[in-house]
């Protein structure tokens, strides 16, 4: 009977085009508003590392002051100190581990007409590419030696390689960065996780790095990170070495632990490490460390903040208002057709049949509303992209999952809106209409 009900619904919608259009519009506007904000929230809270979510961990060490909190939302610092990072890198437990931070500087080619430009860099240990599954177009990462010693090798992003070498294989070629010559060892494919899970300290949705440099370059170039550096105590810093040995936190640390046994062993390792540091007068607070999966890391860092959530609730409240309108319109339409329902009852339709027929009609209104709602959502997201916030291109976009969600929300909403009108029409006394028609 469902096919019959659908054909009746389409016929009914065609017979009252203005009323039908109003109902579809009511659903579409509500769905469009709701899906615009829900899509933003969905895209903002999307886990770009979902495929490796269960084996990746952001590492936190509670090296902070015994008396002062880090900030209002976290008990532990988000980043680690250089000295801790260097010592953690010595562990052979993780399958991959990365200590890294943001940097940057002018880059150009020797004897080239290409004008120098400022490149956003990531100084990192070599496991970065394996841990985050960053694919290479040409070459690969630098040698293991480069994590501990100054080796002037560089990995370019696809975009930078296009800009400097016109997209050619640049492995073995030389680039000039910050006044020093670096040999290109690899070129990565375009890699832009959004949100930027691997480094939420420097903009949740900022562009990914344009070049990648080995971790062992710190002392040679006296690298001061671009991005957040936090400290909690007054430290006398007279040299770069003092800075490297300070309790200031400025590096992100990630590990890949593929088994529960690895996780347990690494936990023991961190416990032992903190105890060792405590013995040397560091880590004044009770022993604590954090190992957070990417999904947990996104939540901890409140990538979707309270205002975004509030906006979603408001848009859902607006959808509710639209639904109330849809209920009124559906009621008006259905009651206008009460005589036909009376005839159908006389001809053998049960109350349930009449109810189902009208609920299917509500569902058809919802389906049409969902399709129009998707167009309104796309328009809404387009409007948001016009706000000129760079990362909005990546966030204010609708994928297939959200399109299906829009249809689902619209159909579900219209079915809910249709419940009462369909129930009312199924309970009317047919004999009233049969006599008066």
């Amino acid at each position, binding site marked *: 009977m469902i096919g019959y009900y659908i054909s009746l619904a389409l016929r009914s919608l065609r017979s009252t085009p203005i009323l039908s259009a109003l109902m579809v519009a009511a659903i579409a506007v509500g769905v469009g508003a709701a899906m615009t904000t829900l899509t933003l929230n969905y895209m903002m809270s999307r886990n770009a590392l979902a495929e490796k979510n269960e084996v990746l961990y952001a590492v936190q060490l509670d090296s902070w002051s015994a008396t002062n909190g880090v900030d209002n939302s976290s008990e532990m610092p988000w980043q680690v100190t250089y000295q801790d990072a260097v010592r953690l890198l010595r562990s052979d437990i993780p399958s991959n581990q990365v200590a890294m931070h943001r940097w940057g500087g002018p880059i150009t080619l020797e004897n080239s007409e290409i004008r120098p430009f400022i490149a956003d860099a990531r100084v990192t240990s070599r496991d970065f590419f394996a841990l985050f599954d960053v694919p290479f177009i040409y070459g690969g990462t630098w040698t293991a030696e480069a994590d501990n010693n100054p080796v002037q090798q560089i990995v370019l992003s696809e975009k930078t390689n296009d800009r400097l070498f016109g997209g050619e294989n640049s492995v073995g070629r030389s680039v000039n960065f910050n006044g020093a010559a670096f040999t290109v060892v690899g070129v990565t494919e375009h890699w832009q996780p959004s949100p930027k899970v691997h480094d939420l300290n420097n903009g949740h949705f900022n562009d990914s790095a344009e070049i990648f440099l080995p971790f062992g370059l710190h002392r040679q170039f006296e690298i001061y990170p671009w991005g957040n550096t936090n400290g909690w105590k007054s430290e006398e810093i007279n040299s770069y070495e003092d800075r490297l040995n300070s309790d200031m936190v400025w590096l992100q640390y990630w590990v890949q632990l593929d088994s529960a046994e690895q996780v347990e062993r690494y936990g023991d390792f961190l416990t032992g490490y903190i105890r060792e540091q405590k013995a040397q007068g560091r880590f004044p607070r009770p022993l604590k460390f954090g190992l957070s999966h990417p999904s947990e890391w996104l939540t901890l860092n409140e990538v979707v903040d309270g205002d975004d959530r509030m906006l979603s609730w408001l848009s859902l409240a607006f959808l509710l208002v639209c639904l109330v309108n849809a209920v009124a319109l559906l009621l008006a339409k259905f009651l206008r057709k009460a005589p036909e329902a009376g005839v159908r009852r006389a001809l053998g339709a049960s109350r*349930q049949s009449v109810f189902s027929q009208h609920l299917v009609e509500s569902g058809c209104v919802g389906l049409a509303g969902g399709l129009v709602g998707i167009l309104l959502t796309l328009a809404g997201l387009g409007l948001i992209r016009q706000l000129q916030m760079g990362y909005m291109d990546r966030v204010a976009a609708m994928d297939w999952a959200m399109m299906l969600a829009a249809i689902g929300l619209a159909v579900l909403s219209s079915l809910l809106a249709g419940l009462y009108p369909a129930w009312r029409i199924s309970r009317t006394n047919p*004999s009233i209409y*049969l006599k008066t028609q």
Partner: protein
Amino acid sequence: MLKMHNIRKSYRTDTIETHALRDFSLEVDEGEFVSVTGPSGSGKTTFLNIAGLLETPTGGEYRLDGEDVSNLNDRQRSRLRNEKIGFIFQGFNLIPDLNLFDNIDVPLRYRGFNAKERKKRIEKVLDQVGLSARAKHLPAQLSGGQQQRVAIARALAGEPRFLLADEPTGNLDSLMARQVMELLEFINEWGTTIVMVTHDPDLARRAHRNIQIVDGQVSDLHRATAPATAEIA
């Protein structure tokens, strides 16, 4: 075919209780053509609605084709209505958006027949009422008499054993009324039991039996003096 015993039906508002039928008893045998007359407000339509399972009586016993229908739920009553009862109304009650074919299709859909069976039955009844050529027309494109013939075709498509007609000629001129009446007589000759409410004494006399309802009760029963004759219009 139909057996009502001490049927009561009352409508209640906050302040008033109206008795539409009071201790209403009637038996209609299989194959009978019974006309029902009475003044306006006497309870004719209430009787017809209860007989057609569109309303439930306040009290009393009603057996249709030997089955006690008093305690059936909505789904069972609807199925019984669909399978055993055909309705013809004064206002035709065709669905304006549907063409003749689809109008006649309605009860067959609820019966669960497949498309082939439905088509066969629809074409057969349209042929019987002489409107085969108009199958794709909308009701509004037909005369009143033609619309009533479509309504009769729709009532007959499910091959009901019991036909309830509520002033079937009330909206028709005399020529059309005669044609419709002859059609009903023809249907009755083929074995369908018919109960027809009418205000027209001439039509009432053409039935096998006439009952008169006054103040919600059967006041009089008349046997027809001569058997009705019929030929298809």
